[in-house]
């Protein structure tokens, strides 16, 4: 911890390195969490902690790695590598699509947690990091070095790899946290300008938060370290590089102030009602919910705010409490919508011997004025809002897992080509542009049933020859004569799956019975290979 930079930056900075910053200097703590996305995924999936993991995103028609875990890094994987190559480098690695929104939500949660140290906390929009402005607040925790130690200890205990640095400017703190060798145990930069520039001079130019074009120009011209850039004349730099670069350079040493946007959590709006007599009975509870929601809606409208989450809570006469939570895709303060959303709240309240207190609270507050309010709301947007509201209401009324949509899957097996996923946590609740390709005319040569049985039902079939389609089938003690049959269409198991031995090739037939019903049946096991075969009914055609 308390890494002394004097060893690294020489005698010129030794005077300032350990000194306490002057009262006018800012204390910016930058926390870099390089493996946060992979760690989050490993925990979410329940994989062992040392699983090599690569997170990729689809770019230029290729899946390329964006984040790799520490184990994967040791195995030779690095960001920018294509997934196809990465699979050959590390066979045991797990690859998953990057979920930037979930990573950001995780960072945001960490930022709120860090507000215990200072009210000015923000997230690094370009990467996986946080910043804390400790100016004027660090002395409450024993100094800025104590704060840094505490944060590193607590985040490390939580299983995260942490790099951090404290510097008078955000640019310098960011550079040291990302590129200093001792950042994993915490770095404290000197305050004085000369010492700070010496401290930064050994870092690579990428620490200047450059655009890719600027970085390429600098490397081409042989400027590999920040110290090389400091030695150059400003006029020479301005001729070749963009204005943003010079601005970053000035912000690095504090010549130009850098505006930082902290995360702000609004205080929830709530309405509390105490009852002199214990409140019970469905009628009374319904009225209570309606009154609370009306008052809350009125409060939100007066504050010109809309909310995304709502909590209806109550305390019984015996002191026990319970809560109901409701969620909206689009924040709102409309009473009619809230009433529809919480329509079944009164039925769900278990009052027992009566309620002594009840409340309703609104979270996730934002200002009413939105982009659509400024630019005008068209009819299509208004309809989409109504559809989203309906999905919220259905999820609240019947359960979030009951509202689902079909998501395509890469598989040849008919029952594995789709997956039903819940809409509760989906960001885009309704997306007509989901990755479903409409079938080409050639694909129409192999019709598929509109209804599938899951699992397929075993049937008895009578065929003239072992590899012929059946002439009669028997399903659940009822027999049908087969009038027409087309096939077979062979669908084999996925050879790349480990448990492929359990599934066998299937020969599918489309048949029409004497009553006109069209069925999709298959024979599992190939008679020409001497396998024992069995017949199954898999679906019904339109």
């Amino acid at each position: 911890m308390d890494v002394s930079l004097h060893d690294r930056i020489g005698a010129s900075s030794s005077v300032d390195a350990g000194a306490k910053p002057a009262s006018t200097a800012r204390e910016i703590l930058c926390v870099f969490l390089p493996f946060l996305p992979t760690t989050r995924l490993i925990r979410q999936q329940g994989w062992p902690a040392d699983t090599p993991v690569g997170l990729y995103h689809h770019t230029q028609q290729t899946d390329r790695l964006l984040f790799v875990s520490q184990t994967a890094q040791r195995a030779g994987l690095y960001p920018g590598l294509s997934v196809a190559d990465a699979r050959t480098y590390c066979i045991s690695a797990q690859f998953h699509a990057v979920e930037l929104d979930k990573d950001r939500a995780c960072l945001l949660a960490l930022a709120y947690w860090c507000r215990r140290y200072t009210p000015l906390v923000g997230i690094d929009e370009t990467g996986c990091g946080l910043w804390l402005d400790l100016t004027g607040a660090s002395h409450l925790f024993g100094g800025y070095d104590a704060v840094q130690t505490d944060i590193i200890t607590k985040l490390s205990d939580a299983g995260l790899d942490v790099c951090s640095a404290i510097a008078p400017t955000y640019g310098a703190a960011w550079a040291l946290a990302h590129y200093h060798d001792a950042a994993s145990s915490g770095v404290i930069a000197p305050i004085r300008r000369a010492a700070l520039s010496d401290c930064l001079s050994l870092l690579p130019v990428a620490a200047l938060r450059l655009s890719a074009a600027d970085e390429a120009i600098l490397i081409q011209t042989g400027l590999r370290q920040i110290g090389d850039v400091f030695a150059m004349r400003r006029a020479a730099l301005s001729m070749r590089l963009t204005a943003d670069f010079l601005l970053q350079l000035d912000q690095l040493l504090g010549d130009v102030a850098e505006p930082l946007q902290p995360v702000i959590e609004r205080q929830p709006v709530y309405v509390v009602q105490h009852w002199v007599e214990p409140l019970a009975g469905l009628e009374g509870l319904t009225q209570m919910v309606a009154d609370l929601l009306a008052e809350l809606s009125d409060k939100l409208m007066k504050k010109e705010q809309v909310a995304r989450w709502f909590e209806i809570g109550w305390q019984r006469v015996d002191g026990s409490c319970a809560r109901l939570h409701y969620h909206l895709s689009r924040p709102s303060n409309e009473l009619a919508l809230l009433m529809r959303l919480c329509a079944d709240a009164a039925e769900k309240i278990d009052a027992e011997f009566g309620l002594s207190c009840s409340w309703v609270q609104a979270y996730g507050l934002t200002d009413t004025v939105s982009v659509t309010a400024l630019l005008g709301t068209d009819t299509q947007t208004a309809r989409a809002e109504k559809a989203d509201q309906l999905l919220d209401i259905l999820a609240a009324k019947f359960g979030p897992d009951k509202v689902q949509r079909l998501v395509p899957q890469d598989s040849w097996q008919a029952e594995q080509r789709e997956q039903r996923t819940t809409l509760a946590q989906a960001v885009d609740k309704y997306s007509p542009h989901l990755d479903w390709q409409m079938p080409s005319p050639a694909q129409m040569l192999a019709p598929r049933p509109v209804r599938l049985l899951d699992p397929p039902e075993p049937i008895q079939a009578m065929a003239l020859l072992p590899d012929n389609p059946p002439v009669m089938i028997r399903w659940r003690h009822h027999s049908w004569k087969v009038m027409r049959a087309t096939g077979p269409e062979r669908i084999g198991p996925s050879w790349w799956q480990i448990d492929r031995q359990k599934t066998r090739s299937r020969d599918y037939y489309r048949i029409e019975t004497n009553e006109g019903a069209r069925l999709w049946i298959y024979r599992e096991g190939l008679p020409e290979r001497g396998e024992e075969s069995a017949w199954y009914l898999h679906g019904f055609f339109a």
Partner: protein
Amino acid sequence: MESAITQMSPHHILQDSLPQEGDKTIYRKDRFAALKHRITAAEQGQTARLSCDIPAFDSALGGGLGFGRVHLVSHTAIPQGKPADSLLPSMINGAVSGFVLALLRKVMMLYPDRPVIWCAPPHAGMTGSLSAEGLRQIGINPAQLIFVHESHPARCMSAFEEALQTDGLAAVVGEYGMLSRQSDLWQRWARRTRRAARMSGTIGMLLGPPAPVCGFETGWHISPYAAPLCTRTVVENYDWRPSWQASLHYAKSGRPASAAIKWDWVSARFLPLERSVNRLVQPPVGQLSDPQINSQANGPSQQPAYTIR
């Protein structure tokens, strides 16, 4: 359906609601004209209809299926002599679903950016659950369908009613199962869903076993079209396009009708089907073997170019 107010821009609505300067009579005249315009637009919206492409049905329905109404589609009753535990409903449920999906496809062509809510039990048992591949082959984008899976039939219908109240959906479909056997509950649901559909202007379709149709706009009986007997069992060029014997047995403001129809995926239209026609097809020389491809090559409005023998 779009209501008159939602079709107007906010600027127009604001202008209508503000008093105009000048002569009071002119102001009143403008107000009346605006109101008349709104009423006309609203009436047009209420009476908009979805054509069934089959003249027999369109004329019986006065132009097609009405929006803002609930239509009941069921399979035919189990014929006399069949056991009560017959699997016939399960076997032909695919045909009934296919007919509803074909109607949905036509609705979704009118509203390509709106979702469809499908309320059904989670495990359909012997009737199976909807398959995305099958939906695509009817011409429906599976992403446009949102399922509400509720096992209790009454709650499932409650979801149907809730969805039907909402403007902004293309259609709402519900599978009622055995709920229709409770006559008092069924009648109450019929009234409530009818009111909900009228409020929103959204078309509703109910799908299930034969049920009392009183209270709904139309009642359909669907059965798969049984093709004439064929000497060969294995046929490679058989036309597997969905075909049904559709019977409009009840229409609130129309008359019953019946026809054998088939669904053309390319043109998204119902086509009449002659009973005497053997659907064993032979592709013409020089053309692809798939009738879908041929019909696409000849344009959506034309008949597929295959020979019927």
